[in-house]
């Protein structure tokens, strides 16, 4: 047994058992397939191209990028083996609170007009909004890490609480008329730009930093992470805090875009975000997933919704199909898992 030293430098032996094709490639192929199906159906039923329509594509991208910002945070949460159901409600709460601090002074019914908190510099509503999301995320993470209650329950509690906060804040009244500076973060393609910047940051963070390695390690084998010296609890709190902050950012973008905030904003966004992550190959059992995958998942998600609208499919059917897609994505994940387990048992 003294001669096995040489094999390590030689790639030849590796040929027998090569690495699998990255999962992202398969998902990308899925995306191309779905695009082609809609293209063909488009020519058959609508007599026009689905893909080669810049307006449709830009609307599609705009629609998904707000939820995409949430999905970037949710992806990281799911990689640690958790789940975050509170993002949609955090969107609602942040939209209300940030908007109330971003109103113009010429609007007589602004929330804080008596206090004179109008025409404030844009940094004040932005910082406040992000802080709201950060606090919500810190609460989620601390509950999960230190009281060991299941992430599902902790974030479900936050989902109800944050929605309650959004409604209580103005007793259900919408908040409108933001300053131009605040409105700018939702204007034109700004949401897409914000999404891309956020994606890039966390793509790098997950792939090339200690933060990312530890995130995967915790989702993969929490006990191993712990005995390896990773502060698992603190890391979990951090990941949920990031997810909460990103949900808050999405909330402000969506409010700025619509020039108004309503307490019901962001309803079901959490599920859309989870769906994007899972379609993109993030495993609900933790340890696997990537930002690239989630971006592809997001485009698939957006394309299906936009494709059905394009084919003039009834909105009710769309919801049902959306549900089915989520289930299919999870089934695919379970199936992948089983193949892996079998492979490992060999």
């Amino acid at each position, binding site marked *: *047994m*003294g001669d*096995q*030293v040489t*094999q*390590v*430098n030689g790639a030849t*032996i*590796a040929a*027998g*058992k*090569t*690495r*699998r094709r990255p999962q992202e490639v398969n998902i990308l192929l899925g995306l191309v397939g779905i695009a082609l199906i809609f293209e063909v159906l488009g020519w058959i039923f609508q007599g026009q191209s689905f893909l080669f329509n810049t307006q449709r594509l830009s609307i599609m991208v705009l629609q998904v990028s707000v939820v995409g910002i949430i999905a970037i945070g949710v992806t990281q949460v799911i990689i640690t083996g958790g789940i975050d159901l509170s993002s949609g409600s955090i969107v609602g709460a942040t939209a209300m609170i940030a908007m109330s601090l971003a109103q113009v002074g010429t609007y007589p019914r602004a929330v804080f007009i008596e206090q004179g908190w109008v025409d404030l510099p844009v940094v004040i509503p932005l910082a406040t909004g992000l802080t709201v999301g950060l606090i919500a995320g810190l609460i989620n993470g601390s509950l999960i890490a230190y009281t060991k209650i299941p992430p599902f329950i902790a974030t479900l509690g936050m989902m109800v609480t944050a929605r309650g906060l959004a409604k209580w804040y103005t007793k259900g009244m919408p908040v409108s008329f933001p300053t131009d500076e605040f409105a700018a973060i939702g204007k034109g393609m700004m949401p897409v730009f914000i999404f891309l910047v956020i994606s890039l940051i966390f793509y*790098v*963070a997950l792939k*090339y*930093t*200690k*933060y990312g*390695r530890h995130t*995967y*390690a915790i*989702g*993969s*084998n929490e*006990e*191993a*992470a712990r*005995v*390896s*010296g*990773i502060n698992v609890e603190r890391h979990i709190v951090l990941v949920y805090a990031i997810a909460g902050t990103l949900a808050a950012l999405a909330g402000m973008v969506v409010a700025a875009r619509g020039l108004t905030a309503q307490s019901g904003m962001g309803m079901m966004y959490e599920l859309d975000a989870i769906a994007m992550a899972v379609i993109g190959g993030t495993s609900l059992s933790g*340890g*696997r997933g990537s930002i690239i995958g989630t971006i592809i998942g997001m485009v698939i998600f957006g394309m299906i919704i936009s494709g059905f609208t394009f084919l003039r499919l009834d909105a009710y059917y769309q919801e049902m199909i959306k549900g089915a897609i989520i289930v299919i994505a999870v089934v695919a994940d379970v199936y992948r898992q089983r193949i*892996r387990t079998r*492979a*490992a048992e*060999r």
Partner: protein
Amino acid sequence: MAERPAKTILKTEGLTKHYGGVRALERADFELHDGEHVAIVGDNGAGKSTFVRQITGVEQPTSGKIFFDGKQVEFKGPLEARAAGIEAVYQNLALADDLDVPSNIFLGREEVYFNIGPFSFLNTRKMMDKSRAVLERTGVKIPDLRNTIGNMSGGQRQCVAVSRAASFASKLIIMDEPTAALGIQETAQVENIIRNLKARGVPLILISHNLRQVLNLVDKIWVFRRGQIAGMVEADKTDGNEVVSLITGVKSGVHESASYI
């Protein structure tokens, strides 16, 4: 003691652990010298794992003292034990299936290029090179280090875990049933790593049920029985029968009356 130039690495005095009314470990006096490889054997429930958990800081003893590397120690957790130079290989505990080999070997002690704000950028090349060197030194065959651990065979996984411990342990390695789930060839590979450790003079405590393995690999065998140390025998002066009789309680007391004590 005069004929032993090697210094004592680990020593326990009256180490005792009770779980409520259960006396899992009673007054264990254990000693390990530098460069020495010993095995701990015993029936299920004999207190082997309990003993190891006290030493690795996973649990804290009810009473008794632990001396490590000349100093009395009281580890509050496994990290403290590791920081002191004790590496443990647990059966299924220590690997993250979704990470590749270097990430696993360096988990929790990654090599970093530089920090930008909260982000520490990983020096993956350095970790890869070092991992390659580590595996080369332990003689482990893994074709593609970038493959995730979950895609590897049980033997390869265990080899990575053992190599990881071997590469960082400065003073002591503890292996709890490292070959229990492995095939013949893979077992041979792990045993080979253990022999390499012996050659490098790294002290080792091996917990095993496999008497053939134990007799072949280690210098001394400590037998635990019903929470107590039933005796200690030197591997080259004994045979399987003596060890078995110690394990089952037919014979006892070598530890107390042995000439070298």
